[in-house]
């Protein structure tokens, strides 16, 4: 899928995001929290990179900073080889078209006062991509069909939809501008179990059809294997392991990756009865500041201990 000599679609180099650390009015400074600490990765066109880790690991912040929804405190963000870090709002606008985001809570992401048709058509309006109201509605209708929603639902309001349908609406809006890259931040976590598979399959179908590239953020490793080509595991702001899905799942190297994999409950009583999850004490095993990622296999890297 991704040739090593191909220019990555998205690339982050030594990305950092620190909160706090500002000087207090009277003496001392606020404690600094390195939410994202020296994170680097490439995503090839058409590739899905999974970003996993527990709450507070910095995975969502990485996604937000990558999109410059928040300014990074260090490092560079490259899109198709161009450094787009710190560009002005106006300069970023064309890139915003290309890089979209889908959030976890499908209801909070929708505007309750807008029909879902208006909501999906709004980006087309903002970027002046439809010459008439009629054309916009036609395009929204085809987006609805693409994500598996009946176009007759366009006139309805968000509260009339179930969680899975709402997430389909969010996905329709995200692909409205024909983006190349989508950051999906826990897009299935809030959905019912019987709906999760539908949305996972939709993500894949859209990728096959539109050639999309994804950064898929999740705390649940079990779906990752169905969706991603590569996975990066984060711990306290650092990437501790990154590599092809098979390598991470079959041959995890970092103690934290092993613990994370061993903790996933398996829906089989025979396996589950005897499963003993590995314990990993985060506090006692914080990544050293100067530690670097070392290769351990084909495109498989582990943070040295």
């Amino acid at each position: 899928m991704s040739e090593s000599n191909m220019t990555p679609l998205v690339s982050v180099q030594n990305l950092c995001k620190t909160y706090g650390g500002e000087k207090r009015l009277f003496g001392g400074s606020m404690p600094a929290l390195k939410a994202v600490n020296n994170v680097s990765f490439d995503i090839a066109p058409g590739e899905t990179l999974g970003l996993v880790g527990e709450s507070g690991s910095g995975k969502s912040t990485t996604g937000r900073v990558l999109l410059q929804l928040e300014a990074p405190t260090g490092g560079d963000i490259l899109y198709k080889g161009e450094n787009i870090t710190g560009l002005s709002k106006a300069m970023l606008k064309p890139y915003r078209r290309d890089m979209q985001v889908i959030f976890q809570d499908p209801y909070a992401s929708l505007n309750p006062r807008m029909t879902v048709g208006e909501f999906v058509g709004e980006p087309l309006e903002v970027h002046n991509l439809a010459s008439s109201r009629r054309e916009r509605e036609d395009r929204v209708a085809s987006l609805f069909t693409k994500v598996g929603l009946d176009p007759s639902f366009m006139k309805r309001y968000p509260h009339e939809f179930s969680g899975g349908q709402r997430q389909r609406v969010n996905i329709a809006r995200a692909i409205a501008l024909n983006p190349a890259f989508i950051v999906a931040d826990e897009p299935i976590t809030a959905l019912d179990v019987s709906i999760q598979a539908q949305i996972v399959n939709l993500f894949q179908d859209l990728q096959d059809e539109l050639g999309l590239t994804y950064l898929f953020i999740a705390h649940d490793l079990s779906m990752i294997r169905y969706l991603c080509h590569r996975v990066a595991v984060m711990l306290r702001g650092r990437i501790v392991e990154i590599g092809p899905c098979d390598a991470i799942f079959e041959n995890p190297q970092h103690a934290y990756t092993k613990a994370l994999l061993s903790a996933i409950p398996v829906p089989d009583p025979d396996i589950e009865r005897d499963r003993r999850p590995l314990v990993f004490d985060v506090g006692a095993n914080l990544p050293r500041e100067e530690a670097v990622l070392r290769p351990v296999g084909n495109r498989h890297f582990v943070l040295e201990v």
Partner: protein
Amino acid sequence: MAPLLEVRNLTVAFDTPAGTVHAVNDVSYSLEEGETLGIVGESGSGKSVHALSMVGLIATPPGRIVRGEVLFNGRDLLALSQRELFEVRGKEIGFVFQDPMTSLNPVLTIERQIAEPLRRHFGMSVSQARRRVVELLELVGIPDAARRARQYPHEFSGGMRQRVMIAIGISCNPKLLIADEATTALDVTVQAQILDLVRDLKKKIGTTVIWITHDMGVVAGLADTVQVMYGGRIMERGPVRAVFHDPRNAYTWGLLKSLPHGGRRGVTRLYQIPGNPPDLTKEPIGDPFAPRNPFATERCRIETPPLGEVEGSVAGHRAAAWYDLRAEIAATQVQP
């Protein structure tokens, strides 16, 4: 021996501006002492509401218990006054809820909160309660218990807070512990520790447990019996191994099939249950899963299937289905 808990025809509705929500429809089951029952279902399945309504924890109105009996140790909980229920809750039936962040009072020390039911139900003195609190915190695996007891909830991590919740739940040695999505908000590694703790506590103090969750994996590791709910009804129920390895209801089957089983991208496609969750404001007629069930028959749409003993499986394995799931699956597999 009579079961510890016997639920008979429990039916709960909510009167809302959008219409009557039929949240729990004719739910009947029994639970033996020492048994761990895993109840699985998604939002709107009635799994939480049915448990809350048993002990008078749903707001009335809009909630309304339409009919049914809940016999706990032979006593009908639904016939008790709020005052009498006050004595049951916390003392005989302990609870652990989903969100340890909002279930604890942020301005009271952990000690105060664990001691409250002890002082109220057993009339313990402050020093007696204090000793018991430290004991409980040690039991749920909180290190340095005596010091930690005097701290406030914000000084605990999510996993530690959930341990505190479990300590409160078991503080009065309840006969029954009901945990509602108790590990859902936690990270997987923390969840694994909490599940270990619960298994351990069951061994040590033999509590009967109802574990409500949407996670089939959690149930597989914890429960003796699993009960699958959908649209306010029990779809299938039985010993975990029987239900997981030989499901007879199409919803259970679809749910298990749609979970990732180590399949890979591009190699395997996830099975997906078609359609959307049921609209509970509609009159509950027929099998609630029928509109999403590829094997549904005409009868499924008009007549509710009873939860009947399954042929050719172990005792206690029951399913609600008018169709023969095994035959249907066999038929689809021979086709090209």
